């Protein structure tokens, strides 16, 4: 079996993650959808790294993990700040921000 199968698995996971971001209104669940999309791209990176026989893809996946960790820290802090301000984490509520 070829490692290309993992690229297709990454595509499936990315689609599920994007559907979650578009569908769910709970901010934390949508955020976990973003995490799933990042993980799917990591899987694609590692799969391509295996196909090409180098470690460059793995180093890139490592960078994505570091940036994702920083993003989670800031994102969850924003969610907590919004929850403190308006007692809700629904993504529909801050719609008064529209211009």
């Amino acid at each position, binding site marked *: *079996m*070829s*490692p*290309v*199968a*993992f*690229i*297709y*698995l990454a*595509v*499936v*996971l*990315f*689609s*599920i*993650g*994007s*559907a*979650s971001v*578009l*569908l769910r*209104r*709970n901010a*934390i*669940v949508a955020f*976990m*959808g973003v*995490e799933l999309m990042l*993980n799917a791209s*990591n*899987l694609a990176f*590692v799969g391509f*790294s*295996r*196909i*090409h*026989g180098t*470690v*460059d893809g*793995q*180093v890139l996946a*490592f*960078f994505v*993990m*570091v*940036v994702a*960790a*920083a993003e*989670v*820290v*800031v994102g*969850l*802090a*924003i*969610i*907590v*700040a919004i929850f403190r301000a308006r007692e809700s*984490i*629904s993504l*529909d509520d801050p719609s008064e921000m529209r211009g």
Partner: protein
Amino acid sequence: MINPFLFWVIAIVTVVPSFALLFARKAVHVAVAVVMVMVGLAVAYIMLAAPFLGMVQIVVYTGAVMMMFVFVLMLIGVSGKESLVETIKGQRWISLLVATGIGVFLVGVVSRVIFQVQEPTVGNPDAIAGALFGRMVVVMETLGFVLIVAAVGALVLTHVPRLVPKHTQREIAEDRVRVGANPVNKPMPGVYARHNALDVPALDPTGQPIEESISRVLEVRHQNQDEEPYRAHLEKGKPE
């Protein structure tokens, strides 16, 4: 090359729990399902000759990131109900269509490429460190900077400035005396009552139940005992 049986196990272990992101009602269930996806992906990395990344995946994602999600869920309330009212008409079907479109598009791109699979280079810590601290050392330094900025940003975002000066215990006590409120502690629930349980009101010297002696939390949850039976019991035992 790749063990097909192991691949299908990983595919099931990652894809099936990830559907919880679409269908699970409670955010905690989603978090646990995503932890499962992360562990499956770690096994996939080890299969793809990247053992270092597999370990980092378990430590960083299941250990740190998902636990932080669970912490925040605990902080802002687990029982957050999700409103099912659509503010944008037909959003459900449009978003499903868009997500399927992304998937079909990516599968179309990948299926048109002819891959020539090379011999793998095992991504052990030595090989990763050679790339990380050799050619990409500037990126590594920049990522350290990004992490510091993110940590300070999280501190700033969750910091609440104090609007009024903090009351000391002496000021609270003096305020209570000035208003004329009862200066002593409220009686514990269950004092002189029939039971010493937390949900039974204490009795005052005249034998009447003191409603304030029960914790406010129990009242909000409707877990306190109704005091009518106690009152009736006391009335019955009272001499005429």
